[in-house]
């Protein structure tokens, strides 16, 4: 690990020149070990109001049935499934960061994986609530499970993508939870060994007795890499199956083979956008600028350009194939999407998902925190509209013009959606208070090799190619957490 120096051509993953192992622990545990500040309370109260709205709206739906929503005979699926797919998509970044980036040995994942995984779990919870509430009779939700039942041995329809989806989402949720919690054990032990009283007792139970001996750490790393290996295909399979909910139907606009890769790219795209939305605020409020650096922000922005462009190509391919198929219904579905009564939703989606992420090609924009934050929200709005466009515009003008209809959401639709955002933020803000928002042990691993101070030491020792040094110093200019004066004399 620390025997050799990392090349200074790589940008540092931890900035600051006075970082020690103790300081990493103190900085990251600051929000857990101290009373919350005003910013947290304001955020929490607003989020909690949202969560209460969600409770009211979902209870209303349970009491009166899904007639409370704006659905009609033609548009039988609208905001519910839009919200579901949106949340599942957001939930993809966490596992992508923790699993795929681990397999590719991308060390910059170490300081963002924890909160991204937490975000995954909370997003999947939000998605799951849609599944349950759209059933109409949620007390019969267990019917989706292949259980022996009172109607003879009638099984669920294993040929149905909706059943596959139940398997996929529940596997995804439980495996993500395992991955996240196992990774948390050493950090919970850190909190435990610094705490006293009741807090210590609680964290003792939660830490499973972690002591950090050699064998446990060695097995821990083995488990992480195997879990990463199996979670990578899992994360791809989940959104593939979500897309099959649509792709295996015969509705024009849904019945396309491009859906699985296109949905997966869209999921990663929206997931990273949500990670940025949350972490840009969290790093500022919690003072974690030294650990979540400009390099992390820029790297995530690069993934957003890539996946945003894949999504853009998918939109165009879909359009081309609709024309090329020669199928009148397919062609009409797409002409109607872009020029019909929902043209504004289509162009909103196109602008937010295809055009605005291209701005990130400019280095000035992708290294600007306000611009990145605004763009991340724009992407999330765009991805919501993408699902709305796919679902509602494909349904609202079906085969018989006499049954054509528009969809108008009721206050319940709106409240379930706005409330689910409140629920998500409530859970996320609670997480920031009770568990370390950055994987402490994994960040400590980087201190001796990939930190700014280790590289500065290398420069001071000399023996380096001066062109490499100047290139490195130049790359530091974009960092908001680096004291530039240190490098002025080099």
């Amino acid at each position, binding site marked *: 690990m620390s025997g050799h120096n990392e090349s200074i051509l790589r940008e540092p993953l931890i900035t600051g020149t006075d970082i020690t192992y103790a300081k990493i622990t103190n900085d990251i545990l600051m929000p857990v070990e101290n009373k919350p500040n005003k910013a947290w309370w304001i955020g929490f109260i607003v989020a909690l109001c949202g969560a209460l709205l969600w409770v009211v709206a979902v209870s209303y739906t349970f009491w009166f049935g899904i007639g409370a929503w704006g659905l009609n005979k033609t548009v039988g699926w609208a905001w519910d499934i839009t919200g579901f797919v949106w949340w599942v998509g957001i939930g993809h970044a966490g596992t992508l960061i923790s699993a795929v980036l681990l397999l590719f040995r991308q060390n910059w994942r170490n300081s963002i994986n924890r909160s991204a995984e937490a975000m995954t779990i909370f997003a999947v919870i939000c998605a799951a609530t849609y599944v349950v509430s759209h059933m109409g009779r949620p007390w019969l939700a267990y019917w989706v499970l292949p259980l022996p039942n009172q109607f003879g041995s009638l099984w669920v329809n294993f040929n149905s993508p909706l059943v596959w989806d139940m*398997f996929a989402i529940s596997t995804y949720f*439980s495996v993500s939870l395992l991955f996240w919690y196992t990774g948390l054990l050493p950090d919970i032990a850190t909190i435990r060994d610094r705490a006293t009283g009741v807090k210590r007792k609680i964290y003792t*139970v939660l830490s499973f007795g972690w002591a950090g001996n050699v064998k446990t750490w060695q097995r821990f790393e*083995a488990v992480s890499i195997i879990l990463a290996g199996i979670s990578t295909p899992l994360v791809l399979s989940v959104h593939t199956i979500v897309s099959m909910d649509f792709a295996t139907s015969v509705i024009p606009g849904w019945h396309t083979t491009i859906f699985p890769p296109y949905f997966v790219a869209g999921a990663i795209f929206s997931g990273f956008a949500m990670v940025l939305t949350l972490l840009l605020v969290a790093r500022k409020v919690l003072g974690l600028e030294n650990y979540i650096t400009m390099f992390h922000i820029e790297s995530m922005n690069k993934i957003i350009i890539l996946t945003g462009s894949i999504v853009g190509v998918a939109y165009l391919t879909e359009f081309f194939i609709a024309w090329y198929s020669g199928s009148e219904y397919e062609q009409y579905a797409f002409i109607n999407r872009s020029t019909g009564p929902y043209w504004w939703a289509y162009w909103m989606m196109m602008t937010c998902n295809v055009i605005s992420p291209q701005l990130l090609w400019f280095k000035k924009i992708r290294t600007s925190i306000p611009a990145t934050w605004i763009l991340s929200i724009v992407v999330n709005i765009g991805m919501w509209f993408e699902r709305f466009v796919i679902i509602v515009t494909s349904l609202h003008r079906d085969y018989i013009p006499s049954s054509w209809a528009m969809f108008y959401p009721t206050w319940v639709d709106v409240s379930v959606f706005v409330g689910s955002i409140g629920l998500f933020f409530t859970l996320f803000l609670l997480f920031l208070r009770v568990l370390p928002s950055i994987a402490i042990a994994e960040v400590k691993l980087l201190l001796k090799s990939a930190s700014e101070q280790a590289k500065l030491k290398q420069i001071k020792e000399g023996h380096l190619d001066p062109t490499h040094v100047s290139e490195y110093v130049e790359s530091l200019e974009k960092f908001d957490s680096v004291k530039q004066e240190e490098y002025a004399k080099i």
Partner: protein
Amino acid sequence: MNNTKYILGSFGDPDEMMHGIDKLQENNIKIHDVYTPMPIHGIEAKLGVKRSRLDIAAFFFGITGTCTMLSFVYYAAAIDWPINIGGKAHFALPDFIPITFELTILFCAFGLVGSYYASTHLFPGRAPRVMDLRATDDRFVIAVDAKENTDHTKIDDLLKEAGALEVKHNERKYISYE
């Protein structure tokens, strides 16, 4: 009589700690265990920790999941309640690939993590066996059994020489018990 049970060398730097392990081993002093706040690569070879067999276990858990789901869905769809859908095959294998895959992953993940917890004795509420409270924070701690290795001054010297910031003589094995 000397009541010291364990001698702990507490290091502030992982490289110095590795150096300390070498020093002790050169002098034939057996190391009980090492406690660190982060994984240390290369340490398992020095301390003779065997390669993990969790990958093999994971494979078999996964295969169990595959077989379980395939046989269950075969039973449900082809034996117990076959439904004639336009004369198509009852056991439509391509349709069952996604769920079989999901169950493979599910069994593999739970089996793997369960075996890990079992083999390293991790479970909710287990009393933590901590020798030095800072070993989960900023110290890298080498523990030497003081009853087996009786030349305590030599151990102290070797640890200090290697760069230990502190050498402790603990009269209790685990300080975390109340």
